[in-house]
């Protein structure tokens, strides 16, 4: 994965900063609660939601189990349809391939459809280093780009910004990237949308190269699918001469028929829409229509390692709907940036440490960025058991015994021993009860608890002793 996020502080520290930012918290709370309620309503409209969820899970699991076969079928179909397939093992290789393809066209500007895969590999930064400017055309991505910011949400990258902040970004920054925002810009949604429309239209009409990701790739026909709300994707996919799509290998589905499931579950889970406004499908190249050249870069970047993990591999079922983010109480308070990855929230907490490994402080802290409340699993349209994968990854991290875990392991092993010896436990409880008058209000080691909370009082008698006295 991109090195851009490495060196991030571990989750608890980054989250603490976010928790104290009251504007950010208010923005996040408002946005997540609104989408949450809408999603619940959209899902409740379908009487067969549980069957769709199960179908989605099965299609994804089947495809992942036979991914080698389906990828080869996909490559053959894309090639047959006039496209060119490239295989990229990691971010560096993928960025190299894209930069070379753009350079071959002689262009120095590209327009982009919102894509998680290109963010994951840090494509914009890599292209900039080669003298190529990438323009984001999704409204929220544009806001993030103009603010020299990072996305904070999978689906709503600018979820952490409010209208007033967006207005001043447009007024101050748009001119530096192209057409400036109109004078007297207000923060009304219509005004902001119009400013973005005028700014972006110039880019669509000038661009000769488009770069996209894809929500799905159909192995049987070599067809790629992008679902979106704004129509900017459709413009980027059809107007340029050259189209380059960078897609994670796990986005493959075997047949067109499989889209039937996901085109119902994805929009309802993500934007709470029955159907997303734009669904664009493209297969290779077509004479006199759309791009003349089409390149598909199949991105691994850690995915085959994830596939090798029996418990963790279910994370690759993810269709990037972000329903888990919108219901997550931790995400709601911490915001997306604290996760130190383009994949925030519950799915990020299981996907990122698997893609990047658990070596860094941020990655080793992510599986603990959850109370295991289970709200994410409940809403996931492909039934990824996120709490179970979190537990699995915690086991791996505890085993590694990274920073802080050696002491913890010793403490938990000791408590485990006491807890297997009821007489020792009873003696410990007796001692605690006998000395209760001497307990300091904030005993050493209780710091993280007592910063904001009182410790419970030790009772005069344990239950065990009460039972001994009253019932035996």
């Amino acid at each position: 994965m991109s090195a851009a996020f490495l060196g991030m502080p571990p989750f608890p520290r980054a989250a603490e900063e976010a928790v104290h930012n009251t504007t950010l918290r208010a923005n996040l709370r408002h946005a997540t609660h609104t989408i949450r309620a809408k999603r619940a309503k959209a899902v409740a409209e379908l009487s067969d939601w549980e069957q769709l969820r199960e179908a989605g899970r099965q299609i994804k699991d089947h495809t992942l189990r036979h991914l080698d076969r389906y990828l080869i079928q996909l490559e053959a179909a894309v090639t047959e349809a006039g496209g060119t397939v490239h295989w990229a093992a990691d971010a560096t290789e993928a960025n190299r391939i894209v930069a070379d393809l753009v350079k071959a066209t002689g262009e120095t500007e590209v327009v982009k459809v919102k894509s998680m895969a290109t963010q994951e590999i840090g494509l914009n930064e890599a292209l900039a280093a080669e003298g190529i400017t990438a323009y984001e055309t999704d409204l929220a991505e544009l806001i993030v780009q103009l603010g020299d910011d990072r996305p904070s949400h999978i689906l709503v990258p600018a979820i952490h910004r409010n209208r007033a902040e967006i207005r001043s970004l447009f007024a101050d920054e748009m001119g530096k990237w192209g057409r400036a925002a109109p004078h007297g810009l207000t923060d009304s949604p219509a005004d902001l949308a119009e400013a973005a429309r005028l700014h972006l239209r110039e880019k669509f009409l000038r661009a000769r190269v488009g770069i996209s990701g894809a929500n799905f790739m159909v192995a049987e026909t070599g067809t790629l699918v992008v679902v979106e709300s704004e129509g900017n994707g459709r413009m980027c996919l059809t107007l340029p001469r050259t189209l380059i799509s960078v897609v994670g290998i796990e986005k493959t589905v075997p047949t067109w028929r499989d889209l039937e499931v996901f085109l119902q579950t994805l929009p309802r889970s993500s934007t709470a829409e029955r159907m997303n406004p734009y669904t664009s499908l493209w297969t290779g190249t077509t004479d006199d229509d759309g791009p003349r050249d089409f390149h598909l870069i199949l991105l691994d970047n850690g995915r085959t390692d994830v596939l090798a993990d029996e418990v963790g591999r279910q994370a690759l079922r993810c269709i990037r709907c972000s329903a888990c983010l919108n219901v997550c109480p931790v995400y709601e308070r911490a915001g997306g940036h604290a996760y130190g990855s383009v994949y925030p929230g519950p799915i990020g907490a299981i996907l990122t440490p698997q893609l990047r490994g658990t070596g860094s402080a941020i990655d080793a802290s992510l599986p603990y960025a959850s109370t295991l409340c289970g709200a994410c699993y409940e809403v996931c349209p492909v039934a990824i058991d996120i709490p179970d994968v979190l537990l699995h990854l915690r086991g791996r991290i505890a085993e590694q015994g990274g920073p802080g875990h050696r002491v913890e392991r010793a403490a938990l092993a000791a408590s485990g021993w006491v807890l297997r010896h009821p007489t020792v436990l009873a003696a410990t409880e007796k001692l605690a009860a006998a000395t209760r008058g001497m307990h300091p209000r904030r005993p050493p080691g209780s710091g993280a608890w007592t910063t904001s909370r009182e410790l419970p009082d030790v009772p005069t008698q344990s239950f065990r002793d009460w039972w001994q006295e009253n019932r035996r």
Partner: protein
Amino acid sequence: MRVALFVTCLNDALFPATGVATVKLLERLGVSVDFPAAQTCCGQPHFNTGYRGAAEKLVQHTARAFAGYDHVVTPSGSCAAMVREQYPRWGETSLASRTHELTEFLVDVLKVTDVGAYFPYTVTYHPSCHGLRTLRLGSRPHRLLQAVKGLELRELPGAEECCGFGGTFAVKNAAVSTAMGQDKIRSALATRAEVLCAADNSCLMHLDGLIRRQDEPLRPLHIAEILGSTEEDPYRPEEPIS
């Protein structure tokens, strides 16, 4: 019917009143309860923090402690969820199938909703994540509370949201945990209830710590203590309740 009380380590050491109330409640309903003294901790803290080896030993210890009982009742949704959901990983399916959270045991096994309790206060109920999503307790606690004489139940806004305890999460991610707990308390205060009730003392310990630090007019109380309270032997708080 041989019924064992699994009081849980947290209740044993810090919240014995919950255990006492559970015993009195079950006895009042004609159940003869046993307390196997070998019991300690279900292993959840170890398992949830990633220490599977330590957890496994406690799982086996717990399974041995409760061997031979028809039903194991526990006033902790979270520990019941650990036994029911995770013990089968280690092949302990028998204990898993015999373990019930208290409100489940009352409604499903004893088939009572009116337990003859008396508690003349306004109460709001926090369902706790394990009770809500793992055990799927549903309306059981509400039905039990609604049947309590004198009790007025008020709906908790955003009830299904986690309170932020999450075991070691409360310490490892103290800032987020605190923010979540404070939001939960704000919701509870908005109901103007005198008592914040739950079926898990772990959630309540976290919320109580915040409530006492912030000096809010709200009393956290385990559902067993409400259901255990009767006109003859009413719940007696150390301080006045309101």
